[in-house]
């Protein structure tokens, strides 16, 4: 269960958040190539093994959209004033205690910031999208073959929305979520991840579904076994942890990617409070060009709790049971 919702709207976080915006403003006058928050001379703390210390709990919750909205097509960064206005507007949209006439809509609208955790701030970089490459801030088009596969899947889903559990998406089934990944992307809640390190491994524990991704640093060869979450290998590139993941399955399907997606993630601690998380998706079978996302993850001192997604998955009973009830009702109407 999602337990940290109440604290997330407390005044403590809000004041720290303003501090981060100010920090971002101060450093954005640096070189255009390194528009990331954090002092240039920041010295990354070290573990007892002498490696960069990325440990702690980090939150990917951010109001910045993954792709740049069309109305900002030519604008890669917001000014400080625009950023505050955008944050205010997004907060208002998500946090309103709305009521609707229709009961079903009313229930849906009842999901406000008590439940959602999109965060309170746009990215500390004040970028207008999390996608930073291509420069237009949009995910490149699918190749014709990948588009055909996506269309076929969509068509199948329309015909068979809930014949059985396999017809539902991986989130409904508690197998994977966009926030868990890899790669990790902000979503409606459970955006935290915890990093623990020893000399030989980095462990990345996702709040969503509690996956512990264990990344060996010893340069070992890859096996040939494909897994939902692939097979990660890590190395240090200066103070940056680089994690390369291969061997996904043909069912992992990250935004239309194939099982041969080559995922490269980079984790760089740019200040005590910001871990710059970047990933590049390279999959020429699926996308017309590689693309890169950048999320300045924020440190949180809040505890991360167990999210027993599958154990509490009453929705699957509701979805499948509802579909059968609808079929029975339709059959009854025909008779």
């Amino acid at each position: 269960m999602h337990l940290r919702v109440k604290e997330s709207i407390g005044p403590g976080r809000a004041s720290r958040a303003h501090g981060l915006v100010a920090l971002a403003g101060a450093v954005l006058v640096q070189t255009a190539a390194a528009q990331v928050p954090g002092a240039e001379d920041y010295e990354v703390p070290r573990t007892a093994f002498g490696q960069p210390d990325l440990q702690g709990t980090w939150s990917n919750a951010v109001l910045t959209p993954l792709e740049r909205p069309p109305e900002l097509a030519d604008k890669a960064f917001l000014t400080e004033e625009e950023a505050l206005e955008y944050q205010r507007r997004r907060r208002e949209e998500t946090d309103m205690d709305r009521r609707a006439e229709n009961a079903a809509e009313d229930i849906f609208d009842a999901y406000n910031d008590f439940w959602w955790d999109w965060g309170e701030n746009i990215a500390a970089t004040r970028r207008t999208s999390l996608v930073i490459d291509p420069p237009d801030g949009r995910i490149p088009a699918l190749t014709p073959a990948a588009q055909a596969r996506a269309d076929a899947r969509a068509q199948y889903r329309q015909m068979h929305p809930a014949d059985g559990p396999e017809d539902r998406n991986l989130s409904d089934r508690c197998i994977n979520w966009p926030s868990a990944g890899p790669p990790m992307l902000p979503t409606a809640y459970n955006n935290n991840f915890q990093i623990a390190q020893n000399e030989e491994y980095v462990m990345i524990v996702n709040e969503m579904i509690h996956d512990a991704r264990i990344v060996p640093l010893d340069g070992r060869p890859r096996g040939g076994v494909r897994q939902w979450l692939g097979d990660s290998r890590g190395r240090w590139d200066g103070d940056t942890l680089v994690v390369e993941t291969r061997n996904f399955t043909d069912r992992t399907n990250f935004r239309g990617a194939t099982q041969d997606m080559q995922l490269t993630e980079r984790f760089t601690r740019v200040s005590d409070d910001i871990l710059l998380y970047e990933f590049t998706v390279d999959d020429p079978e699926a996308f017309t060009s590689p693309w890169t996302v950048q999320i300045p993850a924020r440190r949180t001192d809040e505890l991360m709790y167990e999210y027993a997604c599958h154990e509490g998955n009453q929705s699957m009973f509701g979805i499948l049971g509802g579909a059968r009830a609808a079929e029975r009702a339709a059959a009854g109407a025909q008779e």
Partner: protein
Amino acid sequence: MRLDAFWRRLRAAVAAMSAGARAAAATLLPAVMLAACQAPMDQERATPQTAPPGATAAGATAANALPRNPDGRPKLDGIWQALAAANWDIRPHAASHSPVPELGAIGAAAPGLGIVEGGEIPYQPWAAERQKENFADRLELDPEGNCFLPGVPRATYMPYPFQILATPAHVMIAYQYAGAVRTIHMSDPGPAPANFWMGWSVGRWEGDTFVVEVTDQNDQTWFDRAGNHHSDALRVVERYRLTGPDHMLYEATIEDPNVFTRPWTIRLPLYRRLEENVALMEFKCVEFAEEKMYGHLRKPGTGSAANE
């Protein structure tokens, strides 16, 4: 420097020496003690050296031969697995039929000498009856069949490996089964805000033994496939102690006044997995439980059965 910290550093300093150096150091004990006092920072930054398995000669005790982390604590880090067949039944048990006759010998319960001290679980009378009912209906009721998180201590002796990664702030344990994971807090995180499938774990060192108090588990998990059970008042105190570079002794004291007449203890060795490039693999078992859990809600005439 506190005395216990001093001894810890001294042990670490000795463990990091070669066997020959250690023998020499025995005659130079005052110098070693001085080094332990003066160079704690260097010691903490130093690369830990894993003593070779045979390095108990030349005056070193077995404890000194254990692999240690830079803080001097025994290095529990690694991939471990139990071999006791305790997941079938933590009590002594003979091999027995599978609850699914179609599986033949593939599904037969493996025999085990048991891991419960004294062999018997001190159930209250009603709870002993409940275990028998659980066993009779285990195919339906065992949370393992639904791919549910296993709870503690069952996670330890399921037939899957688990990996320990120890840091100063947290000791993480990731289990291959169902991707279960525990964060063991090394400083008090305060009271648990709710019950959890994997409980609320707070760790401490007692000498070279890693002790974990596990509270706030729910009442949904079992101890094994035989239906041995507990309530949400369960309190488990785990003890992990390296007995060699590749072996660990695991003990857990089980208390639950709602279910048992007294505390009781389980004990079993854990073995380091030594295959080249050994790794926890993905066992996302949700998809293997879906037919069992949701099959009755399938659209008639669809699904895997219809395709065969």
